[in-house]
């Protein structure tokens, strides 16, 4: 739902270069996993991820894909990072379009810093708040 809102004219994800959702995993670079993933859907998701060709990135959109959200029950996968490697987490239920755009920009920065061999950049040093 919010992906639809982000992609349309008001918030317009097209100006960030993410305007065309491709209908086939083979042609896609980024996999946006939107919405809760149930255990029934998990093998299908893994298959789609496998079908994508390298280089590929995964964005977990919404808190249900990040951690499972408040659906702590028999049917829900508690975070897709248990089955896929995730690059950017966009929390929120649903995340506001501004958050989605921010996440997309973070992904773009991450890709920018990535070496052509696939080696990722060093993560930003965390401010050492405990050292005070």
């Amino acid at each position, binding site marked *: 739902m919010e992906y639809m*809102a982000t992609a*349309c004219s008001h918030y317009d994800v097209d100006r960030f270069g993410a305007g065309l959702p491709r209908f086939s995993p083979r042609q896609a670079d980024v996999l946006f996993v939107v*919405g*809760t993933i*149930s255990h029934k*859907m998990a093998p299908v998701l893994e298959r789609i991820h496998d079908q994508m060709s390298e280089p590929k990135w995964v964005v977990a959109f919404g808190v249900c894909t990040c951690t499972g959200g408040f659906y702590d029950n028999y049917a829900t996968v508690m975070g897709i990072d248990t089955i896929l490697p995730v690059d950017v987490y966009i929390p929120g239920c649903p995340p506001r379009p501004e958050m989605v755009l921010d996440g997309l920009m973070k992904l773009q920065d991450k890709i920018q810093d990535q070496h052509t061999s696939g080696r990722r950049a060093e993560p930003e040093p965390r401010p050492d708040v405990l050292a005070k």
Partner: protein
Amino acid sequence: MTADLESKVDETAESGAAELETRDMMLNIGPAHPAMHGIIRIVTKLDGEQIEDTDVEIGYLHRGFEKMAEVVDYNGVIPYTDRLNYVSPLINNMGYCMTVEKLIGIEVPERCHYVRVIMSEISRISDHLTCVGATAMELGAFTVFLYMIKAREYLWELIEKVTGARLTISYCRVGGVKADLPDDFAEPCAKAFEETRKVISESDGLLTRNRIFVDRVTGTGVISAEDAISYGITGPFLRSTGVDYDVRKDCPYAVYDRLEFDVPVGSQGDNMDRYLVRMEEMEQSMRIVEAALRDMPAGPVQVNPETGRPIPASEMVDLAKVGDIYSISGSCAVTGPTLEGSGRAQHSSIAADEKRTFLPPKEDTYGNIEGLMNHFKLVMHGHGVRPPRGEVYFPVEGANGELGFYVVSDGAGSAYRVRVRPPCFAIMSALPKLLNGDMLADMVPTFGSVNMIGGELDR
């Protein structure tokens, strides 16, 4: 010479046709749909382009709503109901809250009914906009989709003004709503409706007499009235077949019996009728909201600024925490926009006068011990809203049809059983009937007009 050639061609054609073997093809339209309809799997048996048989598999978004409702308390189910039909969450909220209110046997004030009706209808308009927009997009009319989402953004801004969130709003509570409408609601509402009307008339001009659109949706996805009733289909889908059943008119709830509106009814039962019914329903919903805004009983008088000294909410909280309640006992808290409307002044109009279900106004919670105890008893685990033992069923008119909640209570703090009757479940069970016999390309407008919302179908 040409005659010989023609007869030769005819001969080969005939003998060729007699030797050509045809087989049905099994096509899996898998769970990852490129369309924005959520995840569903349709296995079709095709004879060329014609659909012979269909098997629909759902359950890919099953999140265990009914099991979670047994674990959390009554008010805690409300965020889960938001995520059922996530395009029109206010209608789900309202349905659930009215069911529990029927179980407890409490009656909310009239203004609260009007507020709920207004918000439900705005939600319904945004649902229909999404449905028609998505269907149009899949048929190639991308512009219509962008226009309709633009109109939906205006409505969502309006909803955000009232509830604080765009989509998952958790606005209704058992015994009332979270907060009253803001004082300046009428003007943005009028503006949003003006934009929506413009968009609807633009889309109407683009689609209704558009040769391509008309050819694709007329005569496809036809279902007869008897079949629709047998499957349990309700809502715009049923009304497009000619049956005039609308829960708002036939079993009126809230204040729908006082508001005047029409219910559009189709005749053919095909996709074109459903499109027209939804377009007209949006106009009728706007009519309901405008009538409700006129007829709504006036809001409460604001607290007298001389006697009720306004102080910032954070200051009031801090004073209360250190125990200095006498200095704040007569004052009103100046709260931010989303807490506005939950003060003592508004409380009588948005909440049932029911201490056992609804949180007391913030001045009472922080100002006197009775209010604090009341708040505590409602929120703490093990206390809280405790309806008497019983079972009730209450239907409301969702955007897709009759949305019924069936709640069983055993006297404890959480519900014993909550069942939601999803309107699109019935429609989806009729999908094989709708699709068989049509061509593969007709599946697109038919599925679009079903308005399958995964959250509601699978719960």
